[in-house]
């Protein structure tokens, strides 16, 4: 155990270096960490859209996907806030990396939902536009 603690003590950072590292990290994530209000706004709008889609019953699968997107956006915003408040490693780094991961996953869900919705809209248009005799407004 003594042999293990020696290199640990040697590698331990000075308070000044630790503060500098935390400051650099905080500065790097600052642009995104300051935009958490916008991220939450996106979450609210996606949530409202999910509710509207859910009301149509047919749109329930898309509503579930959008609700997931909204949840991921809220979680990413909370994690970014946590990283901004505690930038010292390793806490802040883990939180910020998890937040970016949430954002990346929410793009995948959004891309899939949007593609499926476009496909569904095209199918509906192809089926019902001739019956209505005019172009539908999407």
């Amino acid at each position, binding site marked *: 155990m003594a042999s293990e603690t020696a290199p640990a003590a040697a*590698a331990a950072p000075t308070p*000044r270096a630790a503060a*500098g590292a935390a400051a650099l*990290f905080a500065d790097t994530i600052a642009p995104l960490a300051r935009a958490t209000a916008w991220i939450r706004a996106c979450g609210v709008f996606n949530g409202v*859209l999910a509710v509207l889609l859910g009301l149509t019953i047919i749109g329930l699968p898309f509503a579930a996907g959008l609700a997931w997107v909204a949840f991921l956006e809220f979680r990413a915003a909370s994690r970014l806030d946590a990283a901004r408040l505690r930038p010292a490693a390793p806490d802040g780094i883990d939180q910020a990396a998890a937040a970016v991961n949430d954002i*990346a996953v929410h*793009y995948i869900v959004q891309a899939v939902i949007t593609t499926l919705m476009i496909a569904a809209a095209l199918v509906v248009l192809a089926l019902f536009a001739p019956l209505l005799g005019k172009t539908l407004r999407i």
Partner: protein
Amino acid sequence: MALAFALRCAPVMNPPMSSNLSAQAPPLTDLPGASVPAEWVRALTAPLHRRRGWCRGFAVLLLGFGVLKLWHGSWLDALVALCGALSAWFLFRAASVLSAAHASLRPEDARAGFVALARYFMLSALTSALGLLLLIGTIAEAVVQVSHGL
């Protein structure tokens, strides 16, 4: 436990610092963890770097949505189209810059990517708000038409 924590923190806490922070610090090249920010820059940029294809695909879909909205013609549609297209641009840029930061491992590159991502979220919120406004307007219009028909 203490060793694991120290080993984890040590490289992270010895980054090459900016000049105002390192006035009395040893030269950056002499620090054992001089390449340190590399570790957390990699951790921060990896998720979007791995899924950059999805991000770009979604940006293309957003652009398509903008074009569709522009095609409808009203000024509110055009505004939604503009916001959608701009947010698509910033998303595409964020994916590209963060992917480049994952290769260069420089904190300033990651910061530039996060700036683009933050702008995407701002424009995306505006697009969603205006889009919802349009949707509610369309629904109200349809309700009025149906009630007139009845």
